[in-house]
């Protein structure tokens, strides 16, 4: 098996991981940055590696190009063979990486909730369809309903429209009063405010409805229409795609596997982004949902700290504090409404991999119990989707993830055959 060794391994090449790896190198350490996607950029900068349109993306992607950070893409971390020995799986076979210190920057996924018809082809996550489009998924001329909750709906709708889709409406489950309070809360964050205003400009003419959510997706082999509830009225809307997401959930499984402490579904870190386990740092959305500015600031802190440069410059401390306040505003104003717990019927599939029905899951006491009784969460995605749904629907606490973190070929777990080599660092 291929094996590499490095001083600092950074898992996840989104904004947090890029900032961490580049900052670690600047502080004099050797870093290896690995991501399961084909290119760096994470979720927000998807598709920008060769054509950065966003200012922060241009700045950090250029910094990464010019830095000696070693990079490997298309490799997914699936296990640790021993502390400090990470196992990745990729199209060219497995790779083991030996490291002295680890920075986990695995980002977040969308919370998807079950409702009748949500498994039909043509129903996507909201950010999900957005990132598919950024990698060439065609939507030109299609009629699309965007629904769910949170500021990501606006960003997703803007991307879809730019790609030529007809966005029929944006349905936000939050009420008008909370939205107004969220908008008012943006005042101390001029960057966010400008971003929101720009998005609204790009979405001129698209109906934005609050207190509204999709109750049902209809179609035989694929999505044909949705039933949208807004207050007391229900409307059927014919459409080609539904992009629906209910906020983001930190991808904590790697940190959990290593024994890092969590609180409220996010990894607990100190001011240096150090987790509760020695030598393991975490940065970005896995420490709590807070957006790209928070991810960059935390990545910089983690990279410097892991490289042994403990002091945090004043500007960085200010960025961290400001983005933490924004994260709080976000959490407070997009709480999910109770009606969303009532959408699934007894027959609605809850676990998409093992086809476990809602009623069978609801009869269980916990996610662990459901795992044993119904195989819920035992399929390919290993409860990444139904686990987060179960937390909201039944108040379950997510079961501790077990290795491997994703289905992987047996070759990932056989003994290494080659001596570890340092990865070729990109030329400085």
């Amino acid at each position, binding site marked *: 098996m291929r094996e590499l060794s490095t001083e600092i391994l950074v898992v996840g090449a989104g904004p947090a991981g890029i900032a961490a790896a580049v900052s670690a190198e600047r502080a004099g350490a050797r870093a290896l940055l690995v991501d399961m996607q*084909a290119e760096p950029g994470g979720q927000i900068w998807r598709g920008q590696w060769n054509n950065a349109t966003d200012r922060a993306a241009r700045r950090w992607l250029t910094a990464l190009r010019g830095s000696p950070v070693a990079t490997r893409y298309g490799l997914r971390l699936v296990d640790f063979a021993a502390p400090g020995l990470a196992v990745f799986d990729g199209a060219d076979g497995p790779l083991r990486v030996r490291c002295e210190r680890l920075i986990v920057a695995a980002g977040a*996924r969308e919370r*998807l909730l079950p409702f009748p018809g949500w498994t039909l*082809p043509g129903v996507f996550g909201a950010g*999900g369809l957005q990132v*598919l489009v950024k990698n*060439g998924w065609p939507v030109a001329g299609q009629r699309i309903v965007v629904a769910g909750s949170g500021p990501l709906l606006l960003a997703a709708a803007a991307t879809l429209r730019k790609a030529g889709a007809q966005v029929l409406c944006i349905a936000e489950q939050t009420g008008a009063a909370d939205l107004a309070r969220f908008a008012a809360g943006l005042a101390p964050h001029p960057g966010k405010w400008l971003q929101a205003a720009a998005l609204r400009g790009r979405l001129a003419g698209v109906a934005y409805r609050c207190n509204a959510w999709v109750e049902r997706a209809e179609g035989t082999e694929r999505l044909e229409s949705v039933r949208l509830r807004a207050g007391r009225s229900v409307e059927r809307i014919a459409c080609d795609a539904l992009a629906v997401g209910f906020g983001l959930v930190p991808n904590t499984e790697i940190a959990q596997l290593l024994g890092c402490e969590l609180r409220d579904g996010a990894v607990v870190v100190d001011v240096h982004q150090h987790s509760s386990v020695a030598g393991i740092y975490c940065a970005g959305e896995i420490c709590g949902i807070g957006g790209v500015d928070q991810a960059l600031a935390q990545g910089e802190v983690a990279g410097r700290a892991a490289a042994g440069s403990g002091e945090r410059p004043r500007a960085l401390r200010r960025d961290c504090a400001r983005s933490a306040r924004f994260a709080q505003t976000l959490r407070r104003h997009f709480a999910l409404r109770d009606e969303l717990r009532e959408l699934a019927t007894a027959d609605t599939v809850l676990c*998409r991999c093992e086809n476990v029905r809602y009623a069978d899951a609801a009869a269980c006491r916990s996610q662990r119990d459901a795992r044993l009784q119904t195989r819920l969460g035992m399929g390919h995605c290993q409860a990444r989707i139904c686990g987060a749904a179960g937390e909201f629907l039944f108040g379950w606490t997510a079961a501790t993830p077990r290795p491997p973190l994703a289905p992987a070929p047996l070759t990932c777990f056989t003994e290494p055959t080659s001596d570890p080599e340092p990865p070729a660092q990109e030329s400085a």
Partner: protein
Amino acid sequence: MSTDVRLRVDGVEVVVPAGCSVAAALRLAGHVSTRRALDGGGRGACCGMGVCFECRVRINGVERLGCLARVADGMEIVCDA
């Protein structure tokens, strides 16, 4: 400078833009459902980011996620739908 890539989907030759994901290529080739669930229902890409595993297909004989993989000349893709 978007050049084209030739691949085969379920034995049929398809030409798609270079740089797109395998999931996008399948959709461009007209495939809406790319796998069958345990109850026989069709499923297609959903999360777009390697989390839901709904987009899995066989690429050159190995099961992989269509949303994470990039197209390459000569790729053989087989759907289970």
